[in-house]
């Protein structure tokens, strides 16, 4: 706001440069995705052309038909949605009170907890997979969607916590003090005052957990055995053969469909991510 008053504005060439850089970045980001879409609609002969075109010369839906014919994509997508949504919700529900305590009550314990969160990120998952497999086996959670959900919750929790602590710190404690003055207890304050203000943070964290679970491949591969319970990333590898040979058309078609949910969710909630709910909350 102060910018307009003082009149410091980027010059026209600088602004143009900024947009140019943004455009270049967008192209860079979009290129693989656009190429994927283009590939998904090409017949096999065009895929093996020496001079590939952006727009398929002879567009076809055959790749999509083949992908659906050969692999249980819908069921896999349903599994993925279920696991990813549950993992995201559970992770946020668990992480929110934890983050609140860690941000507001600094003690040796919370510092140790923060340290542990950082350290836990350092373990590569190949180190974890075999013990994890054994634990889940004893709990009879191999080849079960709740088992996989649990793994994803645990897997995304440290980083979710880390993200949320930052968001909680950004909420001015004065607001909570005001609630306390009005007679609200800790829980009430968290639910009625802090949580609503955290909305963008909660959404961002949930998204992070969702995407992590949605894209995750290795745990799903190892833990889920029956085709009925496999998730999309695992099903997608069924279009790959030995020595890097792939059924490119159907693979692209299926991969394109697999990216849609993330895109749709981002499109729907991106406004929430940038919401400035705290503007004017406290005078400083």
């Amino acid at each position: 706001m102060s910018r307009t008053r003082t009149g410091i504005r980027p010059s026209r060439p600088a602004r143009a440069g900024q947009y140019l850089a943004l455009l270049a970045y967008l192209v860079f980001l979009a290129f693989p995705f656009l190429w994927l879409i283009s590939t998904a609609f090409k017949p096999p002969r065009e895929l093996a052309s020496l001079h590939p075109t952006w727009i398929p010369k002879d567009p076809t839906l055959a790749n999509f038909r083949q992908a659906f014919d050969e692999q249980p994509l819908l069921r896999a997508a349903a599994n993925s949605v279920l696991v990813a949504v549950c993992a995201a919700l559970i992770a946020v529900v668990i992480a929110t009170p934890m983050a609140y305590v860690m941000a507001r009550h600094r003690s040796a314990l919370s510092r140790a907890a923060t340290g542990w969160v950082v350290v836990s990120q350092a373990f590569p998952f190949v180190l974890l997979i075999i013990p994890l497999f054994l634990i889940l086996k004893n709990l009879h959670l191999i080849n079960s969607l709740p088992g996989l959900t649990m793994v994803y919750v645990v897997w995304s929790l440290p980083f979710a916590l880390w993200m949320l602590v930052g968001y909680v710190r950004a909420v001015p404690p004065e607001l909570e003090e005001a609630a306390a003055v009005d007679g609200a207890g800790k829980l009430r304050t968290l639910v009625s005052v802090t949580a609503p203000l955290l909305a963008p943070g909660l959404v961002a964290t949930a998204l992070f957990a969702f995407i992590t679970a949605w894209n995750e491949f290795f745990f799903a591969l190892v833990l889920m055995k029956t085709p009925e319970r496999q998730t999309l990333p695992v099903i997608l590898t069924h279009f790959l053969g030995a020595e890097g040979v792939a059924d490119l058309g159907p693979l692209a078609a299926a991969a394109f469909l697999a990216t849609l949910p993330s895109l749709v969710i981002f499109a729907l909630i991106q406004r929430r991510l940038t919401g400035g709910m705290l503007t004017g909350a406290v005078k400083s």
Partner: protein
Amino acid sequence: MRRVSRLAAVTAAVALLLTGCSSGGTADDGRITLEFQSLAWQKESVDANKQLVKEWNAAHPDIQVKYVQGSWDSVHDQLLTSFEGGEAPDVIHDASDDLADFAYGGYLADLRDLLPAHLKSDIPQHSWETATFGDGVYGVPFLQEPRVLIANSKILKAAGVRIPTPEKPWSWEEFRAVTKKLSGGKKFGVAWPLKEPVSATLNLSLSAGGRMFHRGADGKVTVRFDAADQVVPRTVHDQVDTDGSASGATLGMGGSDTLPGFFAGKYAMVPLGFSYRQQIVQQAPKGFDWQVLPAPAGRDGLAQGVSPQTLSVAEDSPHKKEAAQFIDFLLRPPNMVRLALGDWMLPTGTEALKDPALHTEKHDWATGTALAGDLRSAPAQSVRGYAEWKDKVATPALQEYYSGSIGLGELRKRLVKDGNLVLARYQR
């Protein structure tokens, strides 16, 4: 109120969906369920596998087989984890070059006492060798493919070169001369897709008598790089760097990546696995005239190394006998043929190889089948430390040699001197 009940309904639905239970093993009524993890991935081959499982299940109500889909891309890690966790499938589909760790690690059952005599004698000894580790046999090799030259018939005809056959193949020198004749302008006689240069080089070198790995009297393996070992690497190197008859650009490519250039007439020939024919049939422009030629021959004829696909039984399986019975059923000659046709590969069984479907001119099945007798176990696949030698020493050394950045002397030094240091660590 309504909102609450809807929430409850959603929660209940999610809980229901999430409730899972594992299956497998022996049911109360004594019925056995075997898990068969297959890596088949192309429609024809998945269909053939599933159909065979269906036929088995119909004929064996007491031993039911459950088809589980695996993936070539990640099979090693996935199997390792399931072995460690004691949850491995009973019947395991893999390739012989992936079995060494599992066989030496005790995860796979030794099949010598489990398989029936007729299956043992149907598959030739040199195929069994691919799945033999130490004293035991840990997989049944059942599908294999030779590396062949897939050629653009029009270019070869126009140049008037002699067309090789399995009976009268090209020698390596003749091959080099032919590719030189076929090159010119921006066109190349051959495109070597050598993203994985080590296995291609070692396997083809068998024809020239190259072995590279030598087991001494003390049982220890050392690397040598003698004249016979040098024939194939030199040919490729000279084609790329001296004659300009092989494209340097394809050296880093996988097989599929060379196909667009091959279809466009840029390369007259591409050395590829026999099963690539399927991709060619699917992707070649209409009217594209191609044919399969045998790879060049050397001192030892058309010999070349292969790592066949295998079927194994998990050591932890409580039903090893039944699992072996199922493998025997899958690999009965007519069934082996169905699996081979589904994967566009060759069966290992001598009976299966006689099937008329594998001797047709269509898609040059006959040419490939004629090569089956010359296929040997890929050199070094059972040598401990081979994987590290391949990744750390041989792959970069061969890549640099083929692209012309190092000479034969340096290549030899690296393969042998650096290579033996690696192997020595595994053979103390």
